[in-house]
């Protein structure tokens, strides 16, 4: 004998199939909803990965190692010595951390003044290791290089400056600049440098306020031989940051409390806020879409319930409890949602892969550069596929299904058996 629990889903499924045109229409809404969710998440995650990547490359990396006081003071007195760095370097070489690290670079950063005969401009002077930094911040790549070249190993009195800064100081390639800043003892010290290259990032603050100089030059000029202010670490992926941060911190705290290990969210709170805002918009938009989809599904299932008064009357007369009648209706809604949702999921990923696997290019919509919290947004977004997106899509499918099927299921229990059977259709 067929069990009751086997009968109920079969009843539901038959009804989905019997009204195939209606199911198709409602299902299409759900399919599009899920496909839109997949699209917005893959593109959104891709865009965020780009932002984080360019943000951390220009900033202090996914993970930064600094003196605890440096971020607030940006003063030379809050620097880390070679000995302190050794302790942290050990933690980064540990087998459970090292595989995540892509590259790192040491910097000595000070605030100072760039002086030329006609003007003086406040700048952030960064002493860099030319070889490591070239790969890290990529300020010297073709798109950013305006003139000349990036710093090279062996350079001494050379400077790499932004275009706006060069314009304001009225300097060209080969021109001399005097950088002034407070040295290790608190006195103002000057350093003559020669411009070897000019870059343009599109971020006004950076193009006007950043100077790269060889690390050894800055160390000698400011009397801080061997010392640095920041070690910027680039990981293979931004998603590894929490894991790496936890492991490195645990080890560093054992060794010393004079060094802080910061994640990019702490080091760049503005970028963090920008990404959260963008995510927030994504969620609002998707919730709105699903509310509309849910209304379409409520309508379909509700209608199918109200048309089948007699059918439910018969089922109840044959001995189905109220709960079982509701289950039939509820299962019907869930089946419709689930099938359409899964097709939508496949459709979404299929379309994104088919159309945008090489990147979604929206550069046509913009003439200049779009900057968000000091990061120039890349106008070509490569979609990113993550497990979380699938979980989120499945979650919304189930949520919409439940929300949309509850009321019709409740309605189905309210049928008066005697009334329903009395009516001749």
């Amino acid at each position: 004998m067929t069990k009751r629990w086997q009968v109920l889903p079969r009843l539901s499924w038959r009804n989905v199939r019997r009204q195939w045109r209606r199911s198709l229409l409602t299902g299409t809404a759900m399919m599009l909803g899920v496909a839109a969710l997949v699209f917005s998440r893959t593109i959104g995650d891709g865009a965020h990965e780009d932002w984080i990547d360019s943000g951390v490359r220009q900033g202090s990396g996914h993970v930064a190692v600094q003196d605890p006081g440096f971020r607030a003071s940006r003063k030379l007195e809050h620097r880390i010595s070679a000995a302190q760095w050794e302790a942290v370097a050990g933690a980064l070489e540990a087998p459970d951390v090292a595989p995540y690290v892509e590259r790192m670079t040491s910097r000595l950063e000070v605030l100072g003044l760039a002086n030329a005969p006609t003007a003086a401009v406040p700048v952030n002077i960064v002493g860099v290791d030319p070889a490591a930094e070239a790969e890290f911040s990529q300020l010297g790549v073709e798109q950013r290089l305006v003139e000349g070249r990036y710093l090279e190993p062996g350079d001494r009195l050379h400077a790499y400056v932004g275009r706006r800064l060069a314009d304001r100081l009225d300097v060209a390639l080969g021109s001399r600049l005097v950088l002034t800043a407070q040295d290790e003892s608190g006195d103002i010290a000057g350093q003559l440098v020669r411009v070897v290259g000019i870059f343009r990032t599109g971020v006004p603050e950076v193009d006007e306020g950043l100077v790269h100089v060889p690390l050894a030059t800055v160390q000698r000029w400011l009397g801080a031989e061997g010392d640095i202010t920041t070690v910027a670490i680039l990981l293979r992926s931004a998603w590894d940051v929490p894991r790496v941060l936890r492991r490195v911190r645990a080890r560093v705290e054992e060794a010393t409390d004079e060094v802080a290990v910061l994640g990019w969210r702490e080091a760049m709170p503005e970028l963090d806020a920008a990404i959260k805002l963008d995510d927030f918009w994504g969620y609002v938009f998707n919730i709105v879409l699903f509310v509309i989809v849910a209304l379409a599904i409520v309508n379909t299932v509700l209608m199918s319930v109200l048309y089948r008064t007699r059918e439910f009357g018969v089922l109840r007369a044959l001995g189905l409890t109220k709960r079982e009648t509701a289950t039939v209706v509820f299962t019907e809604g869930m089946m419709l949602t689930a099938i359409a949702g899964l097709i939508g999921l496949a459709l979404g990923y299929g379309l994104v892969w088919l159309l945008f696997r090489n990147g979604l290019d929206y550069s046509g919509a913009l003439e200049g550069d779009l900057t968000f919290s000091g990061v120039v947004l890349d106008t070509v977004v490569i979609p990113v596929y993550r497990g979380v997106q699938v979980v989120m899509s499945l979650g919304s499918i189930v949520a919409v299904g439940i929300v949309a099927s509850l009321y019709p299921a409740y309605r189905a229990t309210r049928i008066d058996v005697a009334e329903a059977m009395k009516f001749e259709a």
Partner: protein
Amino acid sequence: MAESPWWRIGWRNLGRNRRRTVVTASALAVGYFSVVLMVGLLKGLVAEMIENGTGIITGQIQVHAEGYLPDKEVYATIGGRDGADVAALVAAVEVDPEVHAATPRVYGGGLVSTGSATAAALFLGVDPQREPRVSKLMRGLERGRHPAAGANEILIGSEMARTLGAEPGDEVVVVAPAIDGSLGNDLFIVSGVFHTGLVDLDRAFAILPIDVLQFLIAMPPSRIHEVAAAVRSPWRAVEAMPRIQTGLAEAGFDASAESWVTLRPEMVDYANLSEAMEWVMLLIIFVMAIFGVANTMLMATFERRYEFALLLALGTAPWAIVKSVLYEALALGVIALAAGVAITAPVMVWWYEAPPNVSWLFGEYTLSGALMRPVLRVEYPWVMAVGAAFALFITAVLAALYPAVRAARVPPADTLSGR
């Protein structure tokens, strides 16, 4: 012939199954509400960006000597070496009806030192009375007070105060290269500390009374670099700009006016991008709504196939039946729009008056160089409110087309005979 009955048939049919009408209309109303609200939020974001981006320091309109931008050379003062009648110049800008206030400015670069610490600074010479009416820079006073005209007082940013370890009342040395090639330096009292939230401003800017800065860098009082003006609404600056330009020429000043649109083109770009996004949102939401409505209309017409068959058998033209179903959709649109406006209007007004603070969700951030507060504000999206209303009707009618055509194709004889 009496008025066509098809309107009334369509309208009445909505009343026959009220629950269905309510659910369908609510899908459209929710669509309308979401579009208007989201576009309102997006416009709020852009307004916040423009207001803060231009309001903190830029001002919506700036007047400079020809060629001052982009190099900002200290010699390029308005009116050249001889300078200009500053009061008349400011008045010539302020006379424009759109201009709310205008103020003269002088820029310089140099160092501020407490003896133990030194910071590089961009000096901004301002008229302490006029400046607060144009920019928010001086309104963000954290501690102390504004510098008084004629006094050796300096207002510094919060980051600079921290670097220097300086508090209001402390004495600092200000060093600035003067335009005659000498090095101007003098003792100043820190009158106060301002905070804008933009690290670059808070770190680099120091505000001095305009006359004091002019004296420090050996510039006569007639020479200024800039007149900055605030207009009543940022988008009006574009219209006001040519008028101001003409006014300046008529008053005999050799100076060029520029609005924030050319001073901060990246913000215009973002505004345009966000407008494109508004239409994409409208499209997506109403495409989704089509399916919900189409379904209901299909069921509603299927239910009435005997009625349609009878009408057709009595000689009604199929076109009349299509019309009747489309009228029904239009009537549904009217109900949905009324409901949509009824829920949207109060929410928008409430939101506009009391924008929620979402600092628990995210902190301050910058967009196209403008500092953004973590506040979700809305602007009234009038164009989109009308656009979405049209979209709602188009959606309803598009969704009804297929059901209408099917209704008109009901085979009369078969249907009536119950086959």
